[in-house]
């Protein structure tokens, strides 16, 4: 098919069209009725679907706000929170009491140690004072006791002894 003019083209077109068989129109109306029913059903489904979605959208937030299960859960959480705070406070109190007790014990121990230390100091000072009396350089020995143990009885005695010698 080359170098075709308009006349040839139209003739070809009409011949080809004449050979084409269109479908029979027999069931056009029943098909149309069926389509119409289907279209109505489709619209009903769409409208129903939209309605259901809108209804669900309207109901859902209210349900989440007022459901008893949700409310129960919230009250349980609150109760647990209160219990938790109480338990924490009790624990803190216990820890504080224990800490206070430990500190008091330590202080008592230190005081006891201090008393022991004072006794030892006193005993040492007394021993040094006795030996100072027998020493050839008693003045130097008394001075040592008076200087090193000024807060003990032996230290005071040694200081008086020194001032008496002078």
């Amino acid at each position, binding site marked *: *098919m*080359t*170098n*075709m003019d*308009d006349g040839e*083209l*139209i003739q*070809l*077109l*009409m*011949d*080809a*069209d004449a*050979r*084409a068989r*269109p*479908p029979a*129109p027999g069931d*056009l*109306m029943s*098909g*149309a*009725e*069926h*389509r*119409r029913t289907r*279209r*109505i059903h489709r619209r009903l489904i769409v409208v129903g679907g939209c309605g259901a979605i809108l209804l669900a959208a309207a109901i859902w937030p209210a349900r989440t706000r007022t459901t008893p299960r949700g409310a129960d859960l919230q009250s349980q959480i609150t109760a647990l929170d209160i219990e938790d705070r109480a338990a924490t406070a009790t624990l803190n109190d216990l820890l504080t009491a224990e800490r206070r007790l430990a500190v008091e014990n330590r202080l008592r121990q230190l005081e006891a140690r201090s008393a022991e230390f004072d006794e030892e100091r006193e005993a040492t000072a007394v021993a040094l004072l006795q030996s100072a009396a027998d020493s050839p350089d008693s003045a130097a020995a008394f001075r040592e006791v008076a200087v090193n143990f000024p807060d003990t009885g032996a230290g005071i005695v040694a200081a008086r002894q020194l001032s008496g010698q002078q």
Partner: protein
Amino acid sequence: MLLARLRQGERSAFAELNRRYGSRLLRLAHRLLGYRDEAAQDAVQDVFARLLSRPVAIAASGDLEKWLVTVVVNQCRTHHRRWFARLRLLGRAPAKTQTSAPADVETHEFVRHAVRQLPPRDREVIVLHYLEEMPVEQIGVILKLKRNAVEVRLHRARQRLKEILTA
């Protein structure tokens, strides 16, 4: 008379409409949709279904046949749009210019195949003018085009058809 009965939604009037114009409209849709049987039936059934649903939409006066032809042409355009949209959705590009038909296909089928390859707007003017034998003015009324525009479109459609057939 028939118009008035149709507008009142009388079922017998629709049966009469089908008897009088069914074949004519089906043949027109068959041509406009590239000789596809099912597509033509779908298009005409859709037209009738719409008229059944909204009989008041039927033209109040004038030539019923001309009005029906206009409605069928518009319905075929809608059908084309849906068909292309469906193809795009499926990711298949419609084959617009297939250069040659299979070798064993007879000449008439080859020509119909070429008509099918035309863009819908070109096919409309070819079908309405050469096969439905409508004057250019009437085509202008149906397609809402000026006379010059119809003639230009006819010229372009003939050229395209020749190109397809001689490729």
